[in-house]
């Protein structure tokens, strides 16, 4: 155990800084009396090497895509190409400040502009903002744009947002943050949208429908055009949750399906590190009728004229464009997570049209792994207490799939949670657990396109082994991790939100 507050080095700060140029006394005098501390803060007393050791030690207890297979469904934990890091660490990108004038950041502005264009193209949208820094913030931003759009055409009475019961929890949460009421509609037994239920839900009060396609069940919605038509006929807008964009990029796009707004998870589809590895980025794209409500500013360009400086050499001069008075305002300071945008741009630029193959491989891998897990050979099947069940009766899935551990629970009392915890002992991250909630004892698995057949074969074999293990071992797992089975109930009932500090 390493606890920073437990360090008791020699007296002193543990660091040294040069004397302020005006002298310590004079420097101190610049701080108003009322703002001065009366006692020193209870900071740890650690020297630089102790601090380095502490964080290095912490890093060895971490688990990430760089340490092992990470099949966390709906999170698209793919490999983060190191080329992206080379690009983002170039001095012209890494060492600039958001307040620098346009003529000093032409390179970054050009990247932003190109990224906006590329995202618009792959999604069938007209205008993109890179400002939101998470998928959920993108949802909120887009829903606010939809809300302002309705106000602008005298439709402010539209106060209902429809979401399917397989939706990510962020969808209803984002809509609720805008002040909308949520109508949840049930999925049909095959996981698709129940059109009859939708027909009943849409009406003159419908503001929007929010859909993930393919859904969290890994099922593509073949009736999506019909759904869009029904919502549009009622006067509502269609919102595309881009969490599962990895399954369709280059194959089809939300614009063609009839959507008006979409968010992209640069940290999923476009390989920005996430899940403890880096900040997210959730740009949104909208059709032209919503563009006037986007947050300001947006990267733009004009032809170079007269004695304009050279710029990046493509004949254009890049600028920040203010959206104008109808904008919903900023949703993030500066221009969003620039580093994430640049990494995702590098990824997109590296592959271009080849990204279509990325989606193909993501879908192929998910179907292969699903097939392996659901069809063990007879010897293996005989050793298992119960077979994993299909989450939905689909012949093929897209980039992810769901399993139900109900049969195992009924047979020997081992739950989905137990299986997930036991997988940690096999050196892989647990799949997404108990989501979507419409599948009992649900495990949701997304291998992504960057894993090899060998990795997936090993995972399937380990999975089958666990389903035949002594229930006592599985229900008390994990055994090999630094932190064993966590008492989640106790933790949830006894919230400790602050480090108690030195005793």
């Amino acid at each position, binding site marked *: 155990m390493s606890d920073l507050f437990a360090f008791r080095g020699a007296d002193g700060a543990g660091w040294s800084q040069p004397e302020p140029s005006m002298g310590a006394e004079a420097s101190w005098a610049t701080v108003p009396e009322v703002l001065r501390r009366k006692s020193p803060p209870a900071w740890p007393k650690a020297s630089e090497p102790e601090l380095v050791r502490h964080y290095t030690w912490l890093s060895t207890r971490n688990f990430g895509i760089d340490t092992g297979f990470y099949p966390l469904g709906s999170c698209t934990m793919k490999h983060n190409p190191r080329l992206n890091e080379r690009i983002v660490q170039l001095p012209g990108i890494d060492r600039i400040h958001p307040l620098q004038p346009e003529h000093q950041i032409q390179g970054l502005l050009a990247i932003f502009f190109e990224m906006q264009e590329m995202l618009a193209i792959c999604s069938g949208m007209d205008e993109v903002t890179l400002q939101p820094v998470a998928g959920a913030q993108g949802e909120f931003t887009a829903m606010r744009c939809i809300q302002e759009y309705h106000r602008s055409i005298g439709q402010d009475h539209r106060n209902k947002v429809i979401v399917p019961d397989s939706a990510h929890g962020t969808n209803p949460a984002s809509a609720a943050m805008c002040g909308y009421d949520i109508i949840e509609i049930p999925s049909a037994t095959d996981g698709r949208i129940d059109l009859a239920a939708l027909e009943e839900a849409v009406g003159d009060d419908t503001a929007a429908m929010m859909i993930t396609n393919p859904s969290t069940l890994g099922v593509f919605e073949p009736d999506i055009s019909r759904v869009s038509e029904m919502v549009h006929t009622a006067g509502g807008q269609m919102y595309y949750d881009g969490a599962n964009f990895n399954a369709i990029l280059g194959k089809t796009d939300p614009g063609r399906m009839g959507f008006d707004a979409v968010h992209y998870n640069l940290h999923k589809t476009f390989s920005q590190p996430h899940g403890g590895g880096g900040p997210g980025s959730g740009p949104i794209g909208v059709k032209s009728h919503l563009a006037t409500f986007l947050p300001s500013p947006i990267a733009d360009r004009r032809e170079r004229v007269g004695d304009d400086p050279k710029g990046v050499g493509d004949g254009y001069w890049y600028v920040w464009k203010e959206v104008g008075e109808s904008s919903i305002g900023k949703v993030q300071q500066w221009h969003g997570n620039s580093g994430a945008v640049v990494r995702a741009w590098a990824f997109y630029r590296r592959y271009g049209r080849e990204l279509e193959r990325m989606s193909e491989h993501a879908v192929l891998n998910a179907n292969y792994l699903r097939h392996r897990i659901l069809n063990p050979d007879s010897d293996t099947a005989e050793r298992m207490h119960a077979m994993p069940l299909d989450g939905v009766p689909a012949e093929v899935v897209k980039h992810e799939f769901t399993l139900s551990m109900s049969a195992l629970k009924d047979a020997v009392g081992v739950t989905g949670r137990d299986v997930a915890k036991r997988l940690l002992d096999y050196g892989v991250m647990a799949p997404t657990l*108990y989501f979507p*909630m419409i599948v009992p004892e649900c495990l949701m698995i997304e291998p992504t396109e960057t894993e090899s057949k060998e990795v997936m074969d090993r995972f399937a074999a380990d999975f089958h082994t666990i389903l035949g293990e002594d229930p006592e071992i599985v229900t008390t797992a994990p055994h090999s991790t630094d932190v064993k089975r966590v008492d*989640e*109930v106790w933790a*949830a*009932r006894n919230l400790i939100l602050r480090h108690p500090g030195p005793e």
Partner: protein
Amino acid sequence: MSEVPSNLHYTKTHEWVRIEGNMLFVGITDFAQKALTEVVWVDLAEVGTTVQAIGACASVESVKSVSEINSPVGGEILESNTVLEDNPEMINEDPYGDGWIFRLQPTDISDIEGLLDAAAYTALIGE
């Protein structure tokens, strides 16, 4: 097997209703508390608010999920079980007793005729 007392009324969304005089006590069923697993937080219904039939008015959170609790019929919330604020586990330990969630003054007591009886609810949960 989940317990389904024969003297109560039930909703398709797994609430139970007990009639006392012209008022209703509402909670979640044994089947529902088992499916939720251990409850860690209850967001109580606001006393004095008017609710519609199958309108969400409270929520129950376990480590597994958050579920909305619906009012079985329209009416006014008279009282919420504040004991649950510090003892959410009462919902698991005594779902039909001390784990009740709110007390309702129905707009029209005859609305409860639209609810399920114990036999119909047992058939619904398929046990």
